[in-house]
Structure formats: C-alpha cells, structure tokens
C-alpha cells in the first residue's frame, strides 16, 4: 500500500541511508538489537515507503542508523519524531 511521501523523517532516512552502506538485513539486525518489534520485511517495506510504522518503531530505525553513524564517526543524524512533531503529546510521562 503506497503512502504519502510527506514524512520528513523517512525522507531524510532514505537520503542518508546510502552513506551508511548497510543492507536491509544489517539495518534490521541493528534495529532488532535496540528492541525493535517489526519484522525484516516490514522494515524493507517502510524504507521503500510502502508500509507505515508506529512512531516508536520509526525512531528505533532512525536510532539504529544514527548509532551506526556514531560507529563510523560520521556526523550525520536522522531526525526523531519528537523533534519533528513538537507538541504531539505522545510522551509516556
């Protein structure tokens, strides 16, 4: 199911992902290691704008890529939903 391309987090992720030089499987493993619940195919579909993920899962994908950039000492970061959607009120606190 195609989705709108207006999600700035996904757009930025798609833009920087080639710099990370990760296969989908490698990215999924990193995301899984951080507590992610979505399956590998869901992640693949999300990356190609064909599947929606909840904000937490999207942020964990972003975190996985960002931690990989930390490993590479590359100063690039994918934004998190909290920084893109101020006042969304999804905080658990």
């Amino acid at each position, binding site marked *: 199911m195609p989705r709108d391309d207006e999600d700035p987090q996904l757009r930025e992720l798609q833009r920087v992902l080639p710099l990370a030089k990760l296969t989908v499987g490698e990215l999924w*493993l990193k995301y899984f290691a951080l*507590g992610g619940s979505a399956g590998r195919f869901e992640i693949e579909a999300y990356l190609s704008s064909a599947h929606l993920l909840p904000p937490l899962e999207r942020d964990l994908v972003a975190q996985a890529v960002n931690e990989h950039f930390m490993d590479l000492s590359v100063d690039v970061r994918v934004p998190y939903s909290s920084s893109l959607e101020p006042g969304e009120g999804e905080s*658990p606190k």
Partner: protein
Amino acid sequence: MTGTASGAMNQEQLQDLLLASPGFSNFMLELAMAAAAGLGTGPPVLCSITVEREGFPVTVASSDAAAMVLDERQYFFNEGPCLTALRQHRRVLIPDLASSRKWARYAWEIRSSGVAAILAVPVEAGKGTAAALNYYAFDTSTIDDAFILAVETLSTAISRILQLALRFHLPSPEGTDFGPALRSRALIDAAVAVIMIQGRCSRAQALQMLQQAASNENSRIRDQAIRILNQARRGHPGPMM
C-alpha cells in the same frame, strides 16, 4: 544453512540462531537476575530461577549462592513452593513461613537460613519446560501486594529471554556473529522490564523513554539500558558484565 542476516529470515528464526554462542544463556540469565534483584526499594531478597525439564529441576540462575541452596533443599525432597509454582503453574505465596502448616517440613529444613517469607511465580518457558521465579525474604513485610505485582510483571517480561536462553543447543550459522545483537537486545529488554516495573508503564512507553534519553544525549540506547540496570542493582552485588 544458507540464510544470512540479509536473507529471508524472520525474527524467530534469527533468535534461534542467536543462541549458538556458548556463554550466551548465562549472560541473559544474569541480566534477568539483575532486573529481579532490583525490584522494589525494601530490604534485599534472594532470588533464583528454577527450570524443570523431564522431571528434573535445576536452578539456572540465582542472585546469590544462598538462593541456590534454598532451591536445592526443595529438589532434594522433591517438594517446595517453587516446584509447586512451576508444576501447577500457579503463584505460591508463603507470607509467614514460621506459621505455615503446609510448608512445615520445608520450613524446618531451611530454618538456619533466616528466611521468613517466600514467593514463587511461574514463568512461561515453552513446550516441555516449566520454570519459576523464586524470592526468599528475611522478614514477613517485604513481600507485599506491590512486590507481588512487580514479580508477576517481571515474570512476563523475562519469559522470552528465558526461552531463548534455554535453547542453546543449536548449530551456529556459518560466518555470521549474531551474538552482539542479541546481547544488546537482552540488555535493553532487561532495562525495559525494570522501567515497566518502576514506572508502571507499558513496554512501548518504557522503550520510548530509553530511546528519548539516548536521543537527547546523542548516545546509544544500550548505554542508557546499562545505566538503568546499574541503578536497579545498587545494593545487590552479583555477577554481571
């Protein structure tokens, strides 16, 4: 085995493969025990995990050697609160061991330990396996309603880790080292369980708190998880990392 991390492998298959690492089960169980020992703010308790397969119970992890001894007295007589919890799949609470008629023999057996109250809660451990989390307290006021609720939450939270830890007799996939990924996941799951118990929140909320803390500091989720676990372990020395 031709599958790799980038192949068509689902999460369950991967988790199975992750168990190849020999020291892995101990590592995960230690994490579970660290989370368990950090429960509540009251006086310290002893805790352990008993697993029974084919009628043969064994303590797979314990916060303390004393907890293992207390478990083993039960195995020797083939009865006791933790064996009842795992075999009958129900919670067993002995609020005051000294006045318990049902457990008088076990109470006599362990009289020198100073244990005053016991809680045993079953843990879902997969087919053909029964498991229980056991808590031994030194006074009768430690195991209150909040404590029981926390242990039951933890029991649910560690079920998956425990099932993974118990299935380590699997061949290693060639050329792929999944160990670091599952170690990281185990750390984060354990920290999430601690946050769920302390904050009375859902898994998603707990994980979101960890993720936000990491993003605020431009740090790693794993480092946040270690910080949470270390806080939980204060006053509960044990083998870990």
